[in-house]
C-alpha cells in the first residue's frame, strides 16, 4: 500500500513538472491561437542562459533578471519578425513559423553558450524527506514539493489574469479572430509581445525546475513532448487544465508503468500518456477544460 501511495504521489508530482511546460503552450495558444512549437526551445534557451550566467559567477538574482530580459527580448522580436507579418493566417502556417523559430532559437542558444551540459542546483536538494521515509517509508522529495508549489502559484496567477483582466479578455478575443480583434482596436503587437514575454518567463521557470532534475542540456527541448498529452487532456486554452491534466497524466502513466508495464515488456510510458489523453478526447473532444469547438451552420 505504501508503495502504491508512493507511486501515486511520485506520479502526481512528476505531472506537475509536465504542467509547467504545458503552461507555456497554453498561454500562447490561448492568446493567439498559435500552437507554439518553439516552447521546448524557449525552455532550453532560458535555462541555458541562466545557468551559463551563474557559471560566470553572476549573482543569482541578477542572472535571473538578465535571463528574463533575454526572454522578453525574444518575445518582442518574435512578434516583430514572425507574427506580425503573419496576422490572420491559418493556424497551420503560424505553427510552421514557430517551427522555423525553433531552429533559430536552438541554433542561437548553442552558438552562444555551446552544447555542453551543465548542472544546476537551487539549494533545495532533490532527495527524500527524511522524517517521511523514516516514519512511513514513503519517499517524497523536497524539491518535488517545491516545484509543485511554484507551479501552483503560477497557475493561480495566470488563471486570475486571464479571467479577470481587460487584457485577459483581449487575449481570448485575439485567439478567436485576429481581424476582428484588430477592428475593435486591440493592438496585436502589444498583446503578443506581452504573451510571449510571459511565456518566456514560464519557460524560464520550467527550465530551472527541469534543469535541476536532469541538468541543463539540449534534451530540455524534449520536455515539450511530455507536455503535449497534458495539453490535449486539459484543453489547449485552459490554464487550470494544464495543471489538472498534468496530475492525471503523471499519476496514470506512473501507475501504468509500474503495475502494467511488467506484463507487456515495459517502456509503455512512451505512449501511455497519449493513449489516456486520446481516450479522454473521445469523450470530450476539446479536452477537459478546453473551449468547445463551435461549428454551426
Amino acid at each position, binding site marked *: 500500500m505504501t508503495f502504491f501511495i508512493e507511486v501515486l504521489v511520485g506520479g502526481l508530482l512528476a505531472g506537475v513538472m509536465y504542467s509547467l511546460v504545458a503552461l507555456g503552450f497554453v498561454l500562447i495558444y490561448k492568446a493567439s491561437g498559435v500552437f507554439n512549437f518553439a516552447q521546448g526551445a524557449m525552455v532550453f534557451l532560458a535555462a541555458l542562459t541562466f545557468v551559463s550566467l551563474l557559471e560566470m559567477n553572476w549573482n543569482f538574482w541578477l542572472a535571473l533578471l538578465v535571463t528574463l530580459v533575454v526572454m522578453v527580448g525574444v518575445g518582442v522580436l518574435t512578434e516583430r519578425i514572425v507574427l506580425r507579418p503573419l496576422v490572420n493566417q*491559418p493556424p497551420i502556417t503560424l*505553427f510552421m513559423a514557430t517551427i522555423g523559430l525553433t*531552429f533559430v532559437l536552438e541554433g542561437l542558444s548553442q*552558438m552562444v553558450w555551446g552544447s555542453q551540459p551543465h548542472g544546476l542546483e537551487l539549494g533545495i536538494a532533490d532527495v527524500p524527506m527524511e522524517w517521511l521515509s523514516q516514519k512511513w517509508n514513503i519517499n517524497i522529495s523536497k524539491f518535488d514539493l517545491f516545484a509543485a508549489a511554484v507551479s501552483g502559484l503560477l497557475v493561480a496567477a495566470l488563471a486570475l489574469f486571464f479571467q479577470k483582466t481587460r487584457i485577459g479578455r483581449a487575449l481570448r478575443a485575439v485567439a478567436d479572430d485576429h481581424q476582428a480583434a484588430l477592428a475593435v482596436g486591440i493592438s496585436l503587437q502589444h498583446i503578443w509581445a506581452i504573451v510571449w514575454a510571459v511565456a518566456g518567463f514560464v519557460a524560464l521557470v520550467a527550465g530551472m525546475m527541469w534543469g535541476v532534475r536532469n541538468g541543463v542540456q539540449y534534451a530540455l527541448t524534449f520536455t515539450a513532448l511530455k507536455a*503535449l498529452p497534458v495539453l490535449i487532456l486539459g484543453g489547449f486554452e485552459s490554464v487550470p487544465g494544464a495543471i489538472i491534466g498534468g496530475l492525471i497524466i503523471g499519476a496514470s502513466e506512473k501507475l501504468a508503468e509500474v503495475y502494467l508495464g511488467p506484463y507487456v515488456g515495459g517502456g509503455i510510458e512512451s505512449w501511455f500518456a497519449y493513449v489516456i489523453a486520446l481516450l479522454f*478526447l473521445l469523450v470530450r473532444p476539446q479536452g477537459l477544460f478546453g473551449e468547445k469547438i463551435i*461549428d454551426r451552420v
Partner: protein
Amino acid sequence: MLYREAGQFRSTYAEDMQIFPIRQDRIALMLLLAVGFVVVPMVATQYWFSALLIPFLIFSLATLGLNILTGYAGQISLGTAAFMAVGAFMAYNAQLRIPGIPILASFAIGGLCAAAVGIVFGLPSLRIKGFYLAVATLACQFLVLWTINRVPWLTNHSASGVIAAQKIEILGYTFDTPASKYLLTLSIVALMALAAKNLMRSETGRAFMAVRDMDVAAEVIGIPMMKTKLLAFAISSFYCGVAGALYAYCYLGTVEPEAFVLDISFRVLFMVIIGGVGSILGSFLGAGFITLVPIFLNLGTTFISDRFDIEISHALVSNMELITFGGLIIFFLIVEPNGLARLWQIAKEKLRLWPFPH
C-alpha cells in the same frame, strides 16, 4: 507573355478535364520526366543518387501521402513515421515469410498494412479535430514503434532490432546500384503521384476537400463523414507505407525502428506546410526544400570556408546553418503563407500577364 493560354481552346469537357489543361504545363511535365528518367541517370553521380535524389523522391512520396490526409482531407497527423515504419517492417516480413513473392508485391503489402493501421488510428478523427487530433496521432507514432521494439517476430528475432533489407529483384534484374534504385524509386513515385493527382481531381478528392473545408456542410450534401475520413487515412497511410518500404530498401538498406522516429513525422509535416497544403506539386517542392536546403547550405559553407580558407569552428558553422534554415522557413512563410506551390502559382499568374503588371 511566355505563359499564355490564349489561343488554346478547349471545346469539349473531356479536353477541359485533362490532367494538365494548359499546353505549357504539359510540355514542362514531359520535359521534367525526360530529364528525370533519361538525363539524370546519364549525368548524375552516386552522391546525387544516394544522398540527394533518392531521399528527395521518397520524402516526396511520404509528403504526398500526408498531404492527401492533411492538405486535402484536413486531418493533421503526426503519425507519418509510424505508417512508414509499418510499411517498411511489413514489406520486410512479406519478403521474408512468403516465399518467392515479388518485391513490388511486398511493398504493396507494406502499404496495405500501413493503411490498415491508418484506419484504426483514423477512427478518433471522427470526433477529434485540429491540433487535438495532431497530438492524438502521436499515440500512433509511439505505440507502433514500441510494438516493433517489443514483438520480436517483426524483427525476425534480431538482437538489436536492426535488420538488413533484402535484395531488390524484379524479373531477375537486381537493383543494387544507386542509379537503378533511383530509377525504381522514380517510377514508383511518378506512378503514385499520377494516381494521387487523378484521385484528387475526381469525386474522392472533392469529398476529401469538402470534409476539410466544412465538414458539417459536407455531411449535409450527403458526403458520409466516416467513410471519407477513414478512406483518407487509409490512402494516406498507404502512400506513407510504401514510402517507408522504399526508405528502408532503396535508401538506407536497413530496416530499423529508429529510422522512423517522431522527427521524421515532423519533417514530413514541415514538407507539407512549406510546400503547400493541398497541392501535389507542393509535396515535391516541400520535400525538396526540407531535404535539400540544409545540404546545400552545408555545401555552401564548406565551399566558402575552403575557398577563402577561413577556419571557423564547426559547431559555429552547424549552428549558423540551423539558424539560416529556420530563418528561411520563416521568410518563405511570410512571402507566401500558403506554401511554395502557391508562390509558384502566383508566379504563373504574373507570367500570364507579363509584361503588364495587372
